[in-house]
């Protein structure tokens, strides 16, 4: 038997497994999984997309942030069975080349990442904010982006969000 990610396995996944249809970055994917499994682990271990990170598992740190129908969501605490028809966007699908979303352009311009581990989540949180609030104030940014960065890139994140807002405004 072969698991959904192509890895061989001798074992059935479990009695509770069902086939779940997910729309990930515009592609419909069938996953055979227990519906209680957090979306984070389905993305990382079943689908094989590792850009979305595990940091805490309790929706505290935001490293696992993805978009569900454009809304920033902490995938570590969302059972995959509850996703339904929502369109999932991960960091891999934010832009076609991984560089051209205004947030990515701004992040590069400000050299935001240090270790980079939290940055997928930070970028997804920033992109979701700009979608609903194209010209956020510092206070808006503070309120919307609650993701943890231990290296301490917050100052550059704040500056880069403003840059991204002006880039998006010009586009």
């Amino acid at each position, binding site marked *: 038997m072969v*698991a959904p990610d192509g*890895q*061989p*396995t001798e*074992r059935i*996944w*479990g009695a*509770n*497994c069902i086939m779940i249809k997910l729309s990930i970055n515009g592609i419909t994917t069938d996953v055979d999984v227990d519906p209680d*499994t*957090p979306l984070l*682990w389905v993305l*990382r*271990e079943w689908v*094989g*997309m*590792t*850009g*979305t*990170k*595990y*940091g*805490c*598992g*309790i929706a*505290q*740190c935001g*490293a696992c942030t993805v978009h569900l129908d454009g809304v920033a969501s902490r995938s570590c605490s969302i059972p995959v069975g509850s996703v339904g028809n929502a369109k999932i966007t*991960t*960091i*891999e699908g934010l*832009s076609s080349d*991984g*560089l051209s979303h205004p947030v*990515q352009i701004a*992040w*590069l311009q400000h*050299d*935001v*990442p*240090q*270790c*980079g*581990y939290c940055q*997928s989540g930070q970028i997804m949180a920033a992109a979701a904010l700009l979608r609903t609030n194209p010209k956020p104030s510092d206070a808006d*940014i*503070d309120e919307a982006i*609650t*993701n*943890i*960065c*231990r*290296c*301490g*890139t*917050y*100052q*550059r*994140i*704040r500056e880069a969000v403003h840059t991204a807002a002006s880039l998006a405004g010009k586009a």
Partner: protein
Amino acid sequence: MSNRIPLGRRSFLGTVAAIGGGFALGWGIPAREASAQAGGQEVGIWVEISPDDTTVVRIARSEMGQGTLTGLAQLVADELDCDWKFVQAAYVSPEMNLARKRAWGDMSTGGSRGIRGSVDYVRKGGAAARAMLIEAAAQRWGVPAAECSAANSVITHAPSKRTIRYGEVAAAAGQLPVPTDVTLKTPAQWTLIGKGVKRLDTVDKLSGKQIFAIDVKLPDMLNAAIAQCPVFGGTLQSFDADKIKAMPGVRHVVAVGEDAVAVVADKWYHAKTALAALPIVWNEGAGATVDSAQIDALLKTGLDANQAALGQRHGDIEAGLAGAARKIEAVYGSPYLAHATMEPMNCTALVKDGKVEIWVASQNGDASLAAAAEAAGVKLADVKVTKLHLGGGFGRRGNQDYTRQAVLIAKQVPGRPIKLIWSREEDTRHDFYRPITQCKLTAGLDAAGNVVALHARLSGQSILAYLAPQRMENGVDKAAFQSWTEEEFGYRTIPNLLIDHAVRNTHVPVGFWRGVNTNQNAIYMECFVDELAHAAGKDPLDFRRSMLTQSPKHLAVLNAAAAKAGWGTPTPPGVFRGICQNMGYGSYTAAVAEVSVSPKGVLKIHRIVAATDPGNVVNPQQVAAQVEGSFVFGLSAVLFGAVTIDKGRAVEGNFDTYPVMRLADMPKVETVIAPSGGFWGGVGEPTIAVAGPAVLNAIFAATGKRIRTLPLRQHDLSSA
């Protein structure tokens, strides 16, 4: 070489390339293979140059966010006189370092030594490669090398107006002997050192393509979750694997060393879920009755103990205090802290046919290799290590406990790669914590308010006693006195000084935590000096200046911070300033904080001005990034951080109980880089030390409340 273990490096790289692409390809490939694959020619040991001029600079240290990869490449590239646009970086693999007799030196990445500890030999490596390229060009043209010059990856023979690219002569240059008597450039000749070039490792961090160790995927890989004895020093007695064997995905349940058990499953989510249901019996051991109150009481016994390890003494402290017009005393304390790297501890290991291969994020590749060999019981030469960028290090990943565990598990499942990932809770509860310490400070002031005597008595845990007892010197942990050594301690005008340390160890593991002992020592000293200034009725800046007259570099950064902050000028209503300075890791730092505290006690940090003198600056952009980040790290500790002990174990487990700073807490940080030249100081750590005291002193200015125990969130700042 790649056939030695059937799961070859090439197949791994193929996997990485498929997911990550581009830049990741260079990582850890032994030179000959890398050259064969990329067409790069080794020129000396530090660079590989391809026919298209692509220049790969080899990096022995580890990139964990601090920018060392870019900075080290700048150092090499400057001496090499290559065009920066051609530069890439690749890790030297630990097995290559081992096989070639540690040609690349120390791989350990800590103590803010990445740049300052390698600066001479990596620059010499760049200069040697440049000389070899010029010699190769000169030989091809049949002219003296002295008539040739090099710039931007092009060699020019001015008399004949001929030029040739590095890529065209690299193959010939690589066959020449490596010169050892190269002359390094003077600072005036630097073209890349001092330039704020962009980091080399950003692009893949924007798209999710960067492969961290936790992201490694290998054919036939299984995943492991681990539970370690919650009480430090306890052991595993038994577990009932039958209870979880039928759970989804579970393959194996194995003991890991003396003190842990792991579930190996198809997916890590399966392993973690099954582990939570596994009945485990621990031998909790002697530590099981210890709690934070007992540790606090233990440390208090050190504050006045007769026996203490000497840090520094001059003059006559007893007479100085006895003869003082006023005596001032205060006791400070700081708790255990977890590193809380964003990427939890993890390591992937494959044990097969007497060989071991690991994929790891490590602050010390050599140590990872050694730990894997020891755990597997194989020779060092039978280990391969793929280093991946760290999702945070902060000192935690200098320890190899997780590497050892991954190999111990993989040994029990031979032939299949095992990826061990710690849960966040395991990560927080099984750290090598920043040591708990207290400090009693006693000072004597004369009638004019000058400090005539100062005694700083530390009491608390010793990192070296726990991690490296062989480095203790007659019971003295010299690292405990960081920032307070004769070289570092700026207040040299104090005529009678005693700094000592009553070592009080517990069963709680301690280790190096970014900034290490400079952090709490600077808080103790700089907040106490602030107390003395107020007691003397003097301005905190002027008071410090008067004590730094024999420490011009300390004084200069203090003045730089004060000037930029506008010390002495009016602040907005309700906003108050605090100031401090420190020296550590070879660099001088100072900071001014501007804060307000609402009547209800809500603290807002409006602005930070930070000055740093690291001697020479490699990349001012990255220095600024480290300074900004240092305030997040330092203030997270001061505002929120505490690991408490109950029943012998760490209580806090995740970010809900171990909060850290978030964006909303982030003040505007203005960085003043004031390099005085002539030395190479560290950058990743020294500024953390001034984050706390600047803010705490500002809080005193705002509220009259002197915070002496941390974290701040345990205190009520309200005035209502």
